[in-house]
């Protein structure tokens, strides 16, 4: 484990260090790709001015609301369609067909509908999350072991009890898999929404900085997005380890 950790750190350090040296010697043009030291300085300036927190808060708010709403609706619709056959037979092909539309391409019309405020970003973000969580939940609900349902029914369970005590817990791993994809999607939704029309946010900042050739700032923003994604995934991983502690640990790594 320690060895892996060291190797990984060494690799990252080598890449960043090479980048720094190559840019300093103008083997690669820092005008286009920036330079680690410049990014670091920019991050400090960005933070000191108070802008970093302001823009980050706006983007995070849009992404997290999108994740929460899209996730909730995805789970709810997934359960309804997963349990009510008629509903699934009618709606599932329609939902799948709509899924075929590249949703990011719809961003301009969402701006038209919901304005340049945070609502349009939440909607886009939520829509992306919804699809991932919905399909995952739907498959999960449909793959519950019928023998477990039968056995618990014979123990005296009502329909509601079967839903709460068998179908829901059995679907949790599937829901979590949907949420894992949803984390990335929620950030994409928020950022792309900001590209299309906004007056603040990390996405807006990237567009703004790019138009003034401030690649240092663009890279700072990308670094921040990397950190957010990393943090959210780490939180999810911890949640998973707790919620799925009943599953055998399928870690076949040899170290």
């Amino acid at each position, binding site marked *: 484990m320690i060895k892996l950790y060291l190797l990984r750190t060494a690799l990252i350090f080598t890449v960043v260090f090479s980048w720094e040296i190559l840019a300093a010697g103008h083997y690669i043009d820092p005008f286009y790709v920036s330079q680690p030291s410049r990014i670091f300085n920019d991050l400090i300036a960005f933070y000191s001015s108070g802008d970093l927190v302001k823009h980050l808060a706006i983007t995070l708010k849009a992404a997290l609301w999108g994740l929460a709403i899209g996730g909730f609706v995805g789970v709810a619709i997934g359960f309804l369609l997963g349990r009510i056959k008629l509903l699934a037979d009618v709606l599932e092909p329609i939902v799948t067909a709509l899924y075929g539309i590249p949703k990011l391409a719809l961003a301009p019309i969402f701006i038209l509908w919901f304005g340049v405020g945070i609502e349009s970003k939440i909607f886009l973000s939520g829509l992306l999350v919804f699809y991932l969580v919905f399909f995952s939940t739907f498959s999960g609900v449909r793959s519950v072991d019928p*023998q*477990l349902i*039968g*056995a*618990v*029914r*014979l*123990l*005296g*369970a*009502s329909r509601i*009890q079967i839903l709460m*005590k*068998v179908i829901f*817990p*059995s679907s*949790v791993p599937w829901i979590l898999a949907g949420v894992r994809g949803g984390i990335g999607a929620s950030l994409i939704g928020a950022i792309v929404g900001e590209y299309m029309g906004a007056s603040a946010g990390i996405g807006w900042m990237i567009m703004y900085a790019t138009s003034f050739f401030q690649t240092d700032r663009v890279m700072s923003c990308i670094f921040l997005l990397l950190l957010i994604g990393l943090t959210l995934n780490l939180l999810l991983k911890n949640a998973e380890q707790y919620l799925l*502690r*009943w*599953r*055998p640990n399928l870690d076949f790594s040899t170290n």
Partner: protein
Amino acid sequence: MVLTVDNILLSVSDLNKSFKSSSGDTVEALKNLNLEIKRQEFLAIVGPSGCGKSTLLNILAGLYPPDSGTIARDMADGNGLRNIGHISQADTLLPWRTVVQNVELGLELRGVSKGRRRAVVEKLIEQVDLSQFKNNYPFELSGGMKKRAIIIRALAYDPDIIFMDEPFVGLDVQTRDLLEEDILKLWHETRKTIVFVTHDLAEAITLADRVIIMSSRPSTVKSEHTIHLPRPRSTVDIKFTEDFTETYKKIWDDLSAEVKKSRSK
């Protein structure tokens, strides 16, 4: 229909059931079957493979209705669901619940408070030597331990009758012997009515008060044998007694004729 005869828990008469096979033919599973189950008895139902033992058990358990015939029960119907226990050969422990949480499920579904159900459950867990594993998840248990948990899960909520549908299929012989011991011990302590379906005649004789032999399809009760072996029985030692061998021989003649018949079908 309510029974009036004393000491009879469940009585079926003229039961018929047929299924449509995938090729569209009608398969008669049960034909004019009559059976009485006494309170607190250990009844074993033995028959050749595919003779409709499970069908009978599922009808008795109320999983689906017969095509015709009457079933009379002298049991309380609670919450529209009968208070029965059912154990199959499948592993039906909920994988996201610990042993304790699995065993208490029946009580939990009946709204029994946590304190009261823990008291019942802990005692049962101790009786089958699972105390050390009570907070473990099913994936950490052996096949035999899972089966013990499933058995006490069916006992925990005090059902009127427990149906066991070839519960020990797929387990190794040693595990099976021990589980049979457990079943007998628990039966002695609780005196639950048990209906035990198996294709293994030795198992049936070892456990039961009464063995019913079913004919090959369309099934009906071919013969009925009261087992006079003394109790308490040791599931291993009893197989070496003369009484056991004699009983076995007598019933086997009956059964083997049916097995041959069902083979030629």
